[in-house]
């Protein structure tokens, strides 16, 4: 009976994907690759075919890539109905129906939600509307900002020194543009990597001529008579003249359209089980609604089953593939999404990469290289276990630390490595800000259960 049902789903079922970007596209391709022959619909509110975002804050701002040419490469034919430029406005869980902004409705047998996040806007609307104030999430954002950078601004002001803000500052400096960065915390990247590594990033920035202001907030954006931004006011009462402002305050999850649907969706994303099945608001798992990408929040066995929401490119791809697989499978054929979190960035000529969940670490130990040279690997520890590692210009070693995380290797690591300097013998506090303060690094949220010694043996997928 169940097998027959599944067979029919695969043959002639209707699958709808809301969110036609990285996760949405990869899910669609996986569905076809795994033999789904039914009706496939993709709904996306952007008017464009799925495109890649990481270049938007890097090569696009440097003029090395055309913002209109970052389409994601297609892995295979999806043979889908694409409804682009249309927003999903509501969900009827009982009837299995998605409502669209153009008044239409789409019925589904299985639904995948991949609506991602959007940039958190500048809170004061009139100021946010000033000409010269930019967000950076979409292709249009990047195209507009790039145009403005080309027109030779006197100074760019970046609000927020998370990864995106730092990358924008880096792109400006590389083109000889004056730039000021303001950050509420004591250093850049603090939310994602902690204060110790943040201090390295701060040095790096200053060395490249960025006017970095920390422990300040922006209080107001000031425009001129023609409605163009001209100055930024800071909490330390200083005023910085700038003709371009980039608001880089982290993100908000695109879940409002699910309000009242009964799905367990909110500002922290959509909670789902390890198989990408969404929970309803009672914490009961649905069996026909799946989630993937930046908007999802799912428990991870390696990290004390905490619900992780990751704004990582690789996570969106892996989770989409798992979700798609599970949508057309049953029972034991389903796979858990146990992707090892990994994130990269490049700024000021340095390649930064992390694996695992750094913000979970209380302590940090530099195991290779030296922070003074800005080439190092740092390992984060939580309750005596290695939970993350970060590298500056040392990417090739991360694989080793990834394995240490998978094994739950002890922290601090006691073995010698070939490039461990005397000053790096001891772990130090990683110096993450109080989690109740607002930050904009990739988030980790607690599920509440915390097994000290995990019963689960982790066998990472190697293909």
């Amino acid at each position, binding site marked *: 009976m169940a097998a027959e049902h599944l067979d029919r789903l695969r043959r002639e079922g209707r699958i709808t994907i809301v969110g036609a970007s990285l996760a949405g596209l990869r899910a669609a391709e996986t569905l076809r690759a795994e033999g789904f022959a039914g009706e496939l619909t993709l709904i996306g509110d952007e008017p464009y075919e799925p495109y890649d975002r990481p270049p938007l804050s890097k090569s696009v701002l440097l003029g090395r890539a055309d913002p209109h040419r970052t389409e994601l490469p297609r892995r295979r034919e999806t043979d889908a109905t694409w409804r682009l430029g249309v927003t999903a406005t509501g969900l009827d869980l009982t009837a299995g129906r998605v409502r669209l902004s153009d008044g239409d409705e789409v019925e589904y047998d299985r639904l995948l939600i991949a609506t991602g996040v959007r940039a958190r806007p500048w809170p004061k609307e009139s100021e946010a509307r000033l000409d010269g104030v930019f967000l950076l999430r979409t292709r249009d954002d990047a195209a507009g900002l790039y145009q403005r950078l080309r027109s030779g601004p006197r100074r760019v002001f970046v609000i927020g020194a998370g990864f995106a803000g730092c990358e924008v500052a880096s792109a400006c400096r590389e083109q000889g543009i004056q730039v000021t960065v303001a950050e509420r915390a004591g250093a850049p990247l603090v939310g994602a990597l902690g204060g110790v590594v943040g201090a390295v990033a701060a040095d790096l920035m200053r060395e490249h001529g960025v006017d970095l202001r920390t422990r300040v907030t922006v209080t107001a954006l000031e425009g001129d008579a023609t409605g163009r931004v001209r100055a930024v006011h800071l909490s330390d009462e200083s005023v910085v003249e700038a003709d371009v402002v980039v608001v880089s305050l982290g993100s908000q999850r695109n879940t409002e359209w699910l309000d009242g649907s009964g799905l367990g969706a909110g500002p922290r994303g959509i909670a789902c089980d390890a198989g990408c099945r969404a929970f309803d608001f009672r914490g009961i798992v649905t069996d026909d609604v799946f989630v993937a990408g930046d908007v999802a929040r799912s428990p991870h066995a390696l990290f004390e089953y905490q619900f992780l929401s990751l704004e990582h490119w690789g996570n969106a791809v892996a989770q989409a593939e798992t979700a798609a697989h599970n949508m057309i499978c049953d029972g034991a054929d389903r796979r858990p999404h146990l992707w090892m979190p990994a994130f990269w960035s490049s700024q000021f000529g340095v390649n930064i990469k992390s694996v695992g969940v750094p913000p979970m670490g209380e302590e940090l130990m530099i*195991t*290779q*290289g030296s922070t003074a*040279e800005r*080439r190092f*690997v740092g390992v984060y520890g939580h309750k005596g276990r290695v939970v993350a590692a970060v590298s500056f210009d040392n990417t*090739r*070693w991360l*694989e*080793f630390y990834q*394995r240490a995380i998978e094994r739950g290797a002890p922290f601090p690591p006691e*073995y*010698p*490595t*070939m*490039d461990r300097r005397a000053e790096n013998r001891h772990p130090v506090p990683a110096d993450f800000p109080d989690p109740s303060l607002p930050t904009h690094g990739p988030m980790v949220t607690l599920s509440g259960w915390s097994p000290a010694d995990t019963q689960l043996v982790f066998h990472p997928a*190697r*293909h």
Partner: protein
Amino acid sequence: MTRDSIVRRITDFANRADPYPVYRELRATPVLHEEEGGPYVISSYWDIEALLHDPRISSEAANLADPGEDAALLQSEETGGLPPSFLRLDPPEHDRLRRIANSAFGPPHQPRRIDGMRGELREIVTALIDGFGDARGIDLVDDFAYPFPVTVICRLLGVPREDEPRFRAWVDPLVASLDPGKRQEADEEFARTAREARMQLGMYLAGLAEERAKEPRDDLLSDLVNSHGPDGAMTMMEVLSTSVLLLIAGHETTVNLITNGMLTLLRHPDVLERLRREPELAPRLVEELLRYEPPVQLVPQRTCLTDIEVRGVTIPKGSRIWLVLAAGNRDPERFKDPERFDPDREDIQHLGFGSGIHICFGAPLARLETQIALTELARRLENPRLVQDPPPYRENAVLRGPRHLEITFDGVRP
């Protein structure tokens, strides 16, 4: 070592033409340690890959607890007048030297140095094939696979091609000294020869380097001598060990890759014919070759800085570790149908160039050279055939390839 020792059989010349059955046997014991003082031999793909990325594994000979049979040769490497090259160094020294060398070799500083050689490479290949004249048979090694990369590395480094016979006499004993089989038998005489060869080659290059310091040209040697990036400059001695390394590596590996490649193609005439019709097959074909018949078969120069565990076996600090890349490349745990030569293979992350921080420095050049060489041979030789299968092999178990490869053909297309 007993006579049926597997380690002995890896280096045994009798198995050179087809070492793969020995490798298969090796993989049955993924961490093989046959006797006190002997190497720990690692043969499965994932273990090798992991160890190549393991910061507890050192490439510096000084970290060996017991240099054993190698003592004399290790000495000669250190005292052959030159400091160790970055191949035998760990970070941070390794990183610094490799970065400086790299800025002379590839992007971002010299983005076109390799790709820009495309036309030049094709010219050299064309001239060599034209040189076959009316012959209906050649030795692919002597007439093509050797002269081609040697000409290339000479031009790239800025070493006069006509000096080749001189430095070949020094390169040969150095290459021989890399062979673990030879090392096991090495006597004082052998060590002395290697030491002297290294010194002679160093002195020869020192002469050229001095010229370049006075009058730089557009070659790698000039860039090495005059490097002044964020990592500072190489000392003259560092320039010399780096150029010895590049000269040797540029000599030996590509010769074997091209020869192994042609041999494999002649054993798979359907693929050879396909390459003739579809030259765009070349890049993938070369990747598959690097998996199937890698010129560097094993890395015998690793040791561990602490006790480490691999598949439940503890390898004690200071032990010698051999990573058998060629065995990992045919590991059925990693590759589907690994014993099959299949240029259409999609999942091809081989160990042919190693992995991790010591991943082959010259890989972009070796790839390009081999792609062009094989494509042109396939296109121009009419009905090529092997004269002898298997052909005679070189002694070396590390750098494996035929000593000669006699082939006949019906003519040379224009």
